[in-house]
Structures are given as structure tokens and as C-alpha cells.
């Protein structure tokens, strides 16, 4: 009888039907401008503009964003200005989606108002940020452990007069034959780089000093790494915290829904102004 039941069970599984999915009406998110910004060497204010896209867009369902899709999202015809201290500077198009100017005077803690209009779509955004002071490592050195694992030891001091937030980036340029294995699922990295990001606030410091050693196990003896530090705004710190928490592949699947913080009115992303110190190390020298 037991065997008969097993056959009946198999027959039941075969007979079981898969119900037809039911269409659901969900209003796709309206297209908006997305802002990224930085101050690059030579103290040039650079703003990157892209457009958000609907979850029903082919781009959202392609798995990865291709170069052509990326190109289609870049804002190619925009009017971008920065207002500060009673003057307005217009940012010029440096390439598709990238607008910059070396005319913008960057003064610590000064307030900067961004205005951007996409002339093709008519979308507009504004955002305000402050220029954060330049921050440097007190000391930084790279060494290999007995097992040959790359370690970065660094020390920074806090400015006690202000509430500060810092981002420290460890960037490992991947070679063609690099095998990142499982780690790629747990880091907010792109295919050409392996990035690790530490976020610090005043609570991270002891007696105004933060000292740490970062282990980078996948860095090979012939690789090079870059380590940067920047003083960032509280808003951008919260944005990066959210990004670090939920932005990687695994966490994106398992995390609770999130609305990423933004300081962009009627848009997404973050407008900020900071100038990082970047140190580059060739592992052959260590």
C-alpha cells in the first residue's frame, strides 16, 4: 500500500497545475535626474548627471547595465550652474553626462547650490552642499604578513572642533586573471576594481585618534593599491552607510526595502564637495 501511495503521490504532483500569474498595476517611478559629484585633482568641481529609469525598463531587467544602456542614461545636453558667495558659475560639458569647471572657487565650509536642467527632457534638480576641508593620513604604510597577505596600517587624527565624518577607500585594481571568488558577492565593487570602504565618525576615534589595520587578502605581490581618505558631510556619510549596508549583491537580495538618502531636490544621488587624499602603493615595493 505504501508503494501504491508513492505512485499516487507522484501522479498528484504531475497533475498539480501551475496557476497563471496575475497582472498587478504598479506605477513606475517617474524619471528623474541623478546627481553624483566630486572634486578631482586640480580642484575641479565635477558633476555627473544621469537619468533614473523605471523598473519596467529593459535596462532594469537586463541583469547588468551595458555600455550602450549607460550611454542612453547619461544626460548629454544639460545646463548646470553652481551658485555660491553671490556668484554663479556655469559648468561645462566635459563628456556625455559629465559637467565641470575649474572656475568654481572651493572654500572650506562654504555653501554651494547646484542647479541642473536636462534640456532634452526638461527635468530639473537643485541641491546644496558644503565644501569639506581636505583631510590627510597622519601615517599610512603597507606591509605583508608572514603568509604574504597585504595589510594597510593607517592613523588619522580628528578635528575636535567639528563633528566629522570620513570615508577611507581601499582600491585594488584587478588584473585580467584575478579570481575574486566569493568576495565579489559581498563587496560593493565593479568588475575592474575591488573596493573596500571604511566609514568613520567621531565615535570611531579614541582621544581624537583612529588607528587601524586593514587586511586585503586578495591583493597579489605584483599588484598595486590606492588608499584614499576624505572628510565628508553627514548626509553623504548616511548615504554611503546605506550603500555599504545594502548595496552589495547578497544584501540587495535579503535586505529590507530602503530609500537612499539624498540631498537632491526632485532627484536622486548626492551632491557633495570633498577633495580626497589618495596614496598609491606598489606591492612589489613592500
Amino acid at each position, binding site marked *: 500500500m505504501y508503494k501504491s*501511495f508513492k505512485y499516487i*503521490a507522484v501522479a498528484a504532483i504531475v497533475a498539480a497545475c501551475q*496557476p497563471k*500569474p496575475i497582472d498587478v498595476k504598479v506605477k513606475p517611478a517617474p524619471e528623474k535626474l541623478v546627481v553624483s559629484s566630486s572634486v578631482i585633482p586640480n580642484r575641479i568641481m565635477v558633476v555627473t548627471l544621469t537619468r533614473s*529609469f523605471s523598473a519596467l525598463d529593459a535596462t532594469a*531587467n537586463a541583469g547588468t547595465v551595458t555600455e550602450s544602456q549607460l550611454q542612453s542614461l547619461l544626460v548629454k545636453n544639460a545646463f548646470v550652474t553652481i551658485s555660491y558667495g553671490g556668484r554663479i558659475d556655469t559648468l561645462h560639458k566635459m563628456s556625455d553626462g559629465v559637467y565641470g569647471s575649474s572656475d568654481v572657487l572651493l572654500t572650506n565650509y562654504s555653501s554651494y547650490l547646484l542647479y541642473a536642467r536636462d534640456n532634452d527632457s526638461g527635468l530639473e534638480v537643485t541641491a546644496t552642499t558644503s565644501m569639506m576641508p581636505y583631510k590627510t593620513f597622519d601615517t599610512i604604510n603597507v606591509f605583508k604578513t608572514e603568509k604574504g597577505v597585504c595589510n594597510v596600517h593607517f592613523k588619522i587624527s580628528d578635528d575636535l572642533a567639528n563633528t566629522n565624518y570620513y570615508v577611507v577607500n581601499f582600491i585594488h585594481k584587478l588584473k585580467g586573471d584575478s579570481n575574486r571568488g566569493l*568576495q565579489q558577492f559581498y563587496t560593493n565593487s565593479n568588475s575592474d576594481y575591488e573596493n573596500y570602504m571604511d566609514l568613520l565618525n567621531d565615535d570611531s576615534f579614541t582621544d581624537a585618534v583612529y588607528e587601524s589595520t586593514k587586511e586585503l587578502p586578495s591583493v597579489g605581490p605584483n599588484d598595486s593599491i590606492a588608499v584614499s581618505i576624505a572628510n565628508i558631510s553627514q548626509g553623504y556619510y548616511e548615504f554611503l552607510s*546605506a550603500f555599504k549596508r545594502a548595496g552589495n549583491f547578497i*544584501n540587495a537580495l535579503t535586505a529590507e526595502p530602503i530609500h537612499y538618502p539624498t540631498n537632491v531636490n526632485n532627484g536622486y544621488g548626492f551632491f557633495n564637495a570633498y577633495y580626497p587624499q589618495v596614496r598609491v602603493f606598489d606591492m612589489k615595493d613592500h
Partner: protein
Amino acid sequence: MFIKGTNKGITTNAYGFYSITLDKGVYELVCSYIGYKPCTKKIALDKDIDLNFKLKEDNFLQEVEVVAEKNSITEQVQSTQMSAISIPVEQIKNIPTIGGETDIIKVLQLMPGIKRGGEGQNGMFVRGGNIDGNLIQLDEATVYNVSHLFGFFSVFNNDALKDITLYKGGFPAQYGGRLSSVVDIRMKEGDMKQFHVDGGIGLLSSHLTLQGPIKKNRISFLISGRRSYIDRVFNLAWGKDVLPYFFFDVNAKINIILGAKDRLFLSGYVGDDVLKSNAGDSSSFIGGGFRLGNLTTTLRWNHVYTNKLFSNISLISTRFRYDVEAFMSGNSFLARSRINDLGAKADYNYYANTKHTVRFGGFYTHHAFSPNMVSTAGEISNVILSRNNKQIFTQEFGAYISDDWVIDSLFRINIGARWSNLATGNVFYPAIEPRISATYNFAKNQSLKLGYSRMKQYLHLVSSSAVALPTDLWYPVTRNVKPLVADQVALAYNYGLPKINSLITVETYYTKMGNMIDYREGAVLALNDKYEQELVVGKGRAYGVELFISKTKGAFTGWIGYTISWSKRNFPALNEGKGFLDKNDRRHDLSIVASYELTKRFSVSAVWVYATGQRFTPVTGNFLVSNAAMNGVSTLPIYSQRNAYEMPAAHRLDISFIIKTRFRPRLKYTGEWHLGAYNAYNRAQPQKIAVESDGNGAYKYVAKGRFGLIPFVAYNFKF
């Protein structure tokens, strides 16, 4: 229990003890219990007497029979207890469910005020509460994991159970520790006179129960086992271990009558879900599995001190564990969690006189939580660090008292309070929880009931809403995570129709919940041992109206349950501080359960359910953003407002036909076939939202269900 020709009566306690004070005289005492033939005894009372009743099963009542309380229709109308549902397990065996095996939790989900979670799942959301707001006890032992197969089966094997009572409001003072509901499940006690075998063979599992006397009229036993064979079915179909999963349960009980005034019960339950890949070891490419389940033990001693004072003393232990392991290409991962509870309860019933029945007692439970002990090896150990977290110990203790007071023939009131406490480390949370309910019998077989309860909850379930994982964990309150609190007011109108064994109840409730926890946006809960950092605190409120119409006897039986309800949340850290609807705010919920006995051997049962869809937070767009190193971009999601959308309504029809085999008097053997179908018209029960191609190059949102039509067949027997 009531005195014929008067309005005097009393309800026995859970162990069948009763005491009633009467003047000298001649009386007819009627004892009734649902599913049994009423028994009447005539007595000439001139001194204190002991009077025992032995009820016989009512063979006519083989169909669906659910009542709002254990007593007669009239007693249900008149009692002070409200918002309670009691179900004799024997009476629900014909209700069709997945696999042909009746599941008591799924039957509870058909009651008004109780929302089910995803399709086929055993989660309950009672009157706007969360899934962890339900205290589920088997012979007084807390059962932390009530589901097998990720919620598709409950861990409760019907063969071993006697009855189940769910309180969703008007909580008696002896219950506490959770906000939303208490489910009190009692195992059978074993027949003291005759040996019985009950069993059944279903598509997904089989079960067998033995019970009988060890020493006639003194000691009885019951042992019941159940095992699934999904693994074997798949193996048969595909010739390999496609799904090497099974679950099992074992219930056992010994019942010892020590004397006229003393009785001892020892009961236990063990059940596990086991998934074990045969891939073997860490050198295999991929493999793993999990094992999770409960082990409970209860030792109870009933003692009758006097003919007015009864006690039940219990020693209780519970262990919940889960082990999850995985290995892939030289990497291995093992996560373990444990909860060990050890406790004692003392419960006293004092029948002072016909007007006052006092219940009082105390309780103590020592909880030991060992969450998220992780052991990893290989490359994965660089990203998931091994850790052996410290155990968390808490002590939960307190006392309670209540008085069921018959003021006059129209008014009854039950007034009480529960003093509960939780100590963890050097943090101490004391609380007083008032409980009150009153009945006004304003007309024959009609009453109004009003109740108020305060409930406290000292632990919570950390469970991802984004993905179902077997790693959901229970955590106690801490210095930072305060006890949850709920205040509920309920008002009910009851109309009994004893001549046709029917009851109509309309009940409305309002619940205010404080110190509620949710997870901050983007929280990652899986294997997170710093979960406190992911919690946010807020408040909630829920209200609604419930309608319950039942017919409990006759060839046609069944019930209609309908709820219209709202469940709202407000968390300053979520949804930009704006209030939002709870995920299980399902406005309309309707269940129709019907069973009809066509002949003595043929019956048909059907269940039709309709519920407004669950709410969800879809990804409505995406944007690209540069990472902090400015060397690449990432795609980030844009979500709608929290729970802004509603899935399509879920509705389905389940049917079953029951064919009894011919009775064989010589063997005393009865058997019955259950044939039927789950989701007979193959409608998707919306479970998750996906984006799919519409076939024309565009995309659309669709709601997917897990199961369509599933036929089932099962055979149950008894001798």
C-alpha cells in the same frame, strides 16, 4: 455543567474538575462537551458529594464542528469569556487542506480576526499583530517553531491532540507574554480502558498513534508519530535525491491516576525538519542542509485539596534549535542557534460559591538564548567570520489572579490582573496587566460582552521580510529593546440559537500597540548578530469588526467568518515618519466552511476563502550612482512608499469527499478515504511580485502564487 430548570451552571477547568455549591434538594445535573453525548444525572443533595461524569462520543457528530467556546450554545452566550475559539480536534478532520492532512493552525486561519501569511503558510496575524505576537503552547510548553516545510505544515499532529483554544482578546489572567493571541493546545491523555490504533496514509506523510491502558483505570499511555516522505516521492519520480528533505514528529504522554485526589501527566514532543544533501563533504562542489525543530517536556500534577480547591503544578522544558550548514568548493558554513527554556507554573482554581470562581497562580521561566553561532572555513571565512556569541539569559516570572463573578442573572464579570516581570542582566522590567471582561445577558440567548486586556511581550522574532530564511531568530528584550505592550478593548454581541445549534457573534476591537519594533531601511538581518542596530521603534494600532456564524450539529455543519479590519504602523524612522499600513492589513477576509453528510458513509466538505491581497513595497525604478571611490557605478533601487501597494485578492476553493469503509464490528475497524483538491479552480494565491516580459518586448508586474490545483488522497483508519 448546568442544573436543569435553573440558570445555574459552571464550566469545568481544562482537566475536567468542577465544583458547584447548591442548597439541599433534588437536582438534575447535565454535563455536556462538544463532540460527546450530554449526560444527565439526578441527585438528592443533602451533603457534599463527588460526582463524576463519563461522556461517550457522539457518533453523529462526525462533521465539521467548531464552537466559540467549549460549552453549550447558551453557556457561550452567557460566559464572560470573549474573543476565544475552541476546536475539538476530532471535529475538524474533514476540512480539506494541502496533502489531505488537516492542519489545526490552518483551521484557525479560517476564523475571523486571524489573517494568514503567504500561501500555504502557518503564520498567523491576529487582530493586526505580528507573527511573533502569538504564544503557542503544547501542554503548556512554548513551541517556538510551529511549522514544517517552511510553514506548509504545522508541527502539530492531529492524532495526538485533544483540543485547541485560541484567545485573540479578553485574555484570561493566566495567559501572557505575547501581544496578539494565545493558542493553548492539549494532547490526548490516552484511553484508560481500551487499546486503540489510529493512523493515516497521505500523499506527503503518514501517521500512526497508539494509546491504551498500561494499568487499567490507573495508567494510560499515548504515542504518536508522523513522518513525511517527500524525499522518497521525488526519489521515486526522478531516481535521485532531488529533494532530500523530510520532517518527523513524535508525541508521547503518560497519564497516571495516583489516587482520588491526585493525577500525574508526563508529556513530550519532539519534531525536526531535516534537509541533508547527499553531496557529502566539503570537497564536494555544493551541498548542505539544515535541521531545526522543537523538543518539549511537561510534567503536570493535578491535586484536589478540597472540593473547592484544585491545583495544577507543572514543570516545563522547551528546546528550540536550528542548524544550517552549507559547503561549496572548499568553503563551509555552519550556523547554529538554540533556545532552552526551563520553567514551572502553579495554577489554582478556587470555587468559592456559586457567584465566585477565583483563579490564581504563579510562573517562572528561565530562558537561555544562544543565537547565531557561526563557524566558517575556506575563503568564505574572510567575509563571514566565525563567532561563538555569548548566551543571553532572561528570567520571566510573575503571578496572577482573577475572579469570575456572577453578579446576578443578567450580569457577570471576570476581573483580574497579571503581574509579569522580566529580568535580563541588571535590567528589570516589571508590569501590571489588568484583565477585565463583562457580560450583560439582556435577552434570552443574547448578550453583550465588553473586555479590556493589557499584554506585554518580552521577546521578538527577527525575521527578514525580504526573503524567507530558516534563520529567523528569537531574541529577548534587552536594555535597549523594551518590552512590547498592547492594550485591547473589544465589544461583542452574541446571539445563540440552541435549537439549531447555531451561534452568531459580531465583535469589534481596537488595539493600541507600543514599543513595536521593525527594521530600519536596508537592514540586513540574515546572520546579523548586531541586530539591535537594525531595529527601529514605533507604535501601531489595529481595529476592525468580525462576524462569526456557526452551525455545530446536524447533517449540515460549518461556519462563516468575515473580518473587515485595519492595521496601521507609525515609525519615525520609516517611511519618512509618515504612518503606513501594515503588510498584513488585508481589508476584507472571508471564510466559508461547510460540510454535508450525504449518507452515513459519504460526506462532502468545502472551504472557500477570500482575502484582500497583502501589501508590498515594490521596486519601481533604479538609478546609477558613482561609488565613493569614483571608479565605477552601482545600480540602486527606488522603492515605493512603504506597503503602498496591494497584491491582487487571494481566493480559492478547497473540496474533499469522505468515503467511510464499511464498519467491521468483529475487528472494530473503521476506515475512511479522503479525496479532494486544494485550490480547485487553480487561481494563483498572490505570494510574491515579479517583473516579467509581457511577450511584446515590454515588461509588467505580476503576482505569482506557489500552488495551483493540487489533488489529494488520504486514507485514515482506526481500531
